[in-house]
């Protein structure tokens, strides 16, 4: 009876979204989630925000492929991964303020456990470069006490799991050239222009 499922289908499809939000709330309340995530709009395109129990664990650009990023997170942190908009409201709000130039510093817990110890040390130092300023890879290497590790600092910036919030875009080449960026050169240019305005 093919028309049976057809008749019962439309209403069910429309209501799953509401039930899904309710599920996310309950799953959160019962401590069942490994990763909760949402997507926000921004001047540098859609951004995926994902958090572990400890804090913001990943910010991804659309070019990275959100499905691929979530699959990687599921493997690394556990597969109880669910879209849960409300849990990330504070981060989303601060990002909105940042892009509106009403915020220069992020006040959110960041979880850098996806980074190796050295990269993590570099990434923890990056918020020390203030809004609107830049530093060279060599300067950051000196800052973390490994002046010879300029190349490794480059890798640490390139693999920053929480770009924008941890401002790896403020690290540029010594000759003034921009250097690479996870979100592509346009995104890096846009962020630097936003902060310079």
């Amino acid at each position: 009876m093919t028309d049976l499922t057809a008749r019962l289908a439309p209403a069910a499809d429309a209501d799953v979204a509401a039930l899904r939000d309710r599920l996310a709330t309950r799953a959160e309340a019962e401590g069942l989630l490994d990763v909760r995530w949402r997507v926000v709009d921004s001047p540098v395109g859609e951004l995926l925000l994902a958090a572990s129990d400890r804090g913001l664990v990943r910010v991804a650009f659309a070019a990275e492929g959100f499905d691929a990023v979530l699959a990687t997170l599921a493997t690394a942190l556990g597969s109880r991964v669910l879209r849960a908009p409300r849990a990330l409201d504070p981060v989303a709000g601060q990002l909105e303020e940042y892009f509106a130039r009403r915020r220069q510093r992020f006040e959110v817990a960041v979880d850098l456990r996806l980074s190796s110890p050295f990269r993590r040390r570099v990434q923890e130092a990056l918020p020390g470069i203030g809004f609107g300023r830049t530093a060279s890879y060599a300067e950051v290497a000196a800052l973390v006490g490994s002046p010879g590790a300029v190349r490794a600092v480059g890798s640490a910036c390139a693999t920053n799991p929480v770009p924008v919030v941890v401002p790896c875009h403020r690290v540029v080449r010594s000759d003034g050239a921009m250097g690479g960026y996870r979100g592509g050169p346009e995104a890096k240019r846009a962020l630097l222009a936003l902060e310079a305005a």
Partner: protein
Amino acid sequence: MQQPFDHAVDAHGAVVLRVCRAVLGPGPDADDAWSETFLSALRAWPDLAEDADVRAWLVTIAHRRAIDVTRARARRAVPTEQLPERPSSWGNPDVADEELWTALAALPHKQRLCVAYHHVAGLPHAEVAALLGGTPAAARRAASDGVAALRRALAHRVDGLHRTEERTRP
């Protein structure tokens, strides 16, 4: 299962809701069964085999959670003057659809479940039989008797739809 749990909700959320509604009728009970199904599934998700049939697995859980919801309803059933107003996710019901739900609810229980699990959820009769007990042949018969009864109940609709609408929407 290593892939994000989102995939299970995206791919099977709607079919599980249709199954819950077919078994419990559209309304808060079906919504509760859906929520409990996906909460249970979320708990067990990391331990589920990579090659598991996720839809069949979810329908099995939904079957059990629907029983829980029915029992809970029976426990809390007390005579009352007024029905409590609970938000229903049953948005904008069509008159014709309402008739189908009523006909579905009027089926003998076994037939109703066999229609829900075979025709709505798409499980093979053998899996329906494994879920409900009995033989695959009996599950097939119950499903086909159920569908025949639905057809009979809705047979008048081909020429009777307008009359129905005038009657219920003055």
